[in-house]
């Protein structure tokens, strides 16, 4: 039987050398400088929170720490000794465990089997697993964490929070001394989160170091002994909890001091296009939103606050369990294809997986949503489609060799424009844009802004989701602010400022 309960060795001594040090870690991918000389000190028995937006470099950092990526420069030290972490197995051997957002549990193995996956040999007798011993060992670890789960339950039958706890148990069974948690509360309820925090407290008492990746200020304040803020792959600041206010932290995370705000030209919105009242889905509760013709409405909030779920529900991509949606005054059709025909358009956050057929060419992608409208008889004219596509390429300034270039070979900005072209051709009147400028170069960004202006001038309604506050404030006439899958505020006119959004996002 393995020493299941041994979770760390010596009592904490913060003045001594840190348990784990990352020194000047640098990592580039083609076109992206993901980590810029990042250094971190992680002490035993401490919760070290890493704050940052999506794309700040958090996941690259974890992967480097875990041996899934090799750093270009810099090195890692454990207890003052320089170590090589080339493979996940190396990290495990050093006592570094990561709990990913996507769990590494096998759905139809039970809890004990999952905890000891790949390490069954410890329980083998004559090649057969001593199931009782394995369950007993798993029981000890779960008891140690104060969990009363039946070790015979399948992972598939556990809730997200329970699966997470099993992941933690799995890490502890490998004598983890550093536990990295990647946004552990992203998909669990508040009560489950309380339980997680209690577990974290228990672990730190046992001298385990926790690296806690998050962008939720509340948790940072509650848990973090030390907080490091990452932005654009670099450490902005690393402070003790009481050294910085929440608003300052969010400011540092988002990167621009609230202040110099560009003047918006006020628009005169027309009639309501969409009116949603009390929408609930599996992931949302009580969302009410109104969008009028000729205005840009922002959906602000941190990643995971439910912004994407709102537009998906409005678009008909996720089933709604309550509430009602009206389009141009009458009840919205229920199916997604009927909503598209009624003038709705979605620019998904993940354009490669949800917006485009990458192996097909620009023409096929740009015309797909408008076939029903352009060719009402069902007969398709390649020549007409060709003309339309050339028009769209010109109108949107898509840089391509021609209409037959495969979409996969286009740059991010041009791919995004093809998705927009698809909906322009469909004559949509309500555009739901989920992070329209993510992964797009500066030039294309400006053109997308210009296009949004044109759409609104033409009487369309636009909803913009963005993690970049300056963008949101500049682009939108008003904005709904989301937190924890609800709308927590509505800002318009002069009230719509970066600081106001921040305060609503941060507010408890």
């Amino acid at each position, binding site marked *: 039987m393995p020493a299941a309960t041994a979770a760390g060795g010596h009592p904490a001594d913060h003045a001594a050398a840190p348990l784990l040090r990352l020194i000047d870690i640098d990592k580039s991918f083609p076109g992206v400088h993901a980590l810029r000389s990042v250094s971190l000190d992680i002490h035993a028995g401490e919760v070290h929170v890493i704050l940052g937006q999506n794309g700040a470099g958090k996941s690259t950092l974890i992967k480097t720490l875990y041996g899934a990526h090799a750093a270009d420069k810099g090195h890692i030290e454990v207890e003052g000794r320089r170590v090589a972490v080339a493979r*996940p*197995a190396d990290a*495990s051997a050093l006592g570094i465990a990561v709990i990913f957002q996507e769990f*590494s*549990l*096998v*759905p*139809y*193995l039970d809890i004990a*089997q999952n905890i000891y*996956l*790949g*390490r*069954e*040999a410890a329980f*083998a007798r004559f*090649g*057969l*697993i001593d*199931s009782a011993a394995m369950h007993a060992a798993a029981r000890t670890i779960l008891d140690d964490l104060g969990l009363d789960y039946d070790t015979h*339950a*399948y992972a*598939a*039958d*556990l*809730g*997200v929070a*329970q699966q997470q706890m099993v992941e933690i148990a799995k890490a502890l069974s490998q004598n983890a001394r550093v536990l990295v948690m990647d946004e552990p509360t992203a998909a669990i309820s508040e009560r489950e989160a309380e339980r997680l925090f209690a577990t974290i407290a228990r672990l730190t008492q046992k001298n385990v170091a926790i690296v806690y990746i998050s962008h939720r200020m509340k948790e940072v304040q509650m848990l973090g002994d030390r907080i490091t803020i990452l932005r654009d792959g670099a450490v902005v600041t690393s402070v003790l909890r009481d050294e910085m206010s929440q608003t300052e932290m969010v400011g540092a995370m988002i990167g621009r001091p609230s202040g110099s705000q560009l003047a918006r030209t006020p628009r005169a919105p027309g009639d309501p296009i969409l009116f949603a009242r009390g929408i609930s889905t599996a992931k949302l509760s009580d969302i009410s939103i109104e969008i009028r013709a000729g205005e840009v409405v922002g959906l602000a909030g941190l990643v995971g606050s439910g912004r994407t779920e709102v537009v998906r529900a409005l678009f008909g991509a996720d089933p709604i369990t309550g509430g009602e949606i009206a389009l141009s005054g009458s009840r919205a059709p229920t199916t997604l294809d009927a909503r598209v025909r009624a003038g709705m358009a979605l620019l998904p956050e993940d354009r490669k997986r949800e917006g485009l057929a990458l192996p097909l060419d620009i023409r096929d992608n740009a015309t797909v949503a408008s076939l029903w409208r352009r060719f009402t008889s069902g007969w398709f004219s390649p020549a007409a489609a060709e003309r339309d596509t050339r028009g769209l390429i010109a109108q949107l300034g898509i840089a391509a060799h021609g209409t037959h270039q495969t979409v996969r070979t286009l740059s991010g900005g041009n791919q995004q424009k093809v998705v927009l072209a698809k909906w322009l051709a469909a004559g949509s009147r309500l555009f739901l844009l989920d992070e329209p400028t993510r992964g797009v170069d500066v030039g294309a960004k400006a053109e997308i802004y210009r296009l949004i202006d044109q759409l609104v001038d033409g009487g369309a309604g636009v909803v913009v989701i963005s993690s970049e506050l300056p963008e949101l404030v500049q682009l939108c006439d008003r904005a709904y602010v989301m937190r924890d899958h609800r709308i927590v505020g509505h800002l318009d006119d002069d009230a719509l400022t970066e600081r106001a959004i921040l305060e609503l996002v941060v507010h408890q």
Partner: protein
Amino acid sequence: MTAPTQSQQRPGAGQFFSAIPGAGILLILMLALFTIANPRFVSQTNLVNVGLQASLLLMIALPMTLIILTEGLDLSAGALLGLSGVIVAEALLAGWSVFAACAMAFAISTAFGALNGVLIAYLTLPAFVVTLGTMGLMQGIALVMTNGDPVGGFTPAIETFYRSQLWIFPMPIVVAVALYAALWLLLYRTRLGNYVIAIGGNKDALRLAGIRANLVHLAVYVLGSAIVGLSAVLLIGRTNSAHPTVGIGMEFEAIAAVVLGGTSFEKGQGWLFGAVLGALAITVLRNGLNILSVDSSLQVVCIGILLILALLIDRARKHYSR
């Protein structure tokens, strides 16, 4: 989500009856129906007959369960059954010993299993097309070897084995039970079993745990083919002749048995005992229809309907348990 779903639990004693899949319900219904329709159905000879038929089907359906648990499929199992039987028969006719003939069939079967496994596990090609292709290869070789004719006249030792009994139990049933026991141990009491379930459920997790997942994946196809190849020996014992096309369609019944038993094509969800339930359900259906003098070809249609019924029952059950 936190409440355990009703279906497809492991066969624990208490949960057993609440967890009977659609196949179990249909099996009980059919048993009752056929007994009422013709009491001869429950005669001892007939029940032994059902057992014999179910045993042969099980020997294909049990390894098929492992393969389906990896989110795979083996359409070549039936063709391999025919080919392996032909190889054994031809080798015996050529004067080989029974052991050598079986070793030859075993070697060729595992080689084909390895071919399937490499293409599916390492090249990530879709299992149904790969095994459809190898099915063609196997059928072709069996036909070429025999010119399409049955091969007979080899040593009666194999038939003697098929007809022998262990105490009061006919040998095929003994072999099927032994195979079930062996695979049960493999699936639920060895590392490999966990890894099989993990391949279908979360292959990345297996890799992260430091296991050579592709090798395990390959091994499942090799093992499956090896079992099918050896089962062919029993099959040729039944009629004391090997027919190159005897196994065609057996893969369908085996897959139907596995799916009937409640094993899913996704996420490694399933149980070995489901194959037993499914194989029994299919055999009882066929046998009962035989007694009612329903044409054997129409029985295949009935299997299809049975399958859809079982899927609908399981779906409805899942729906109401939520």
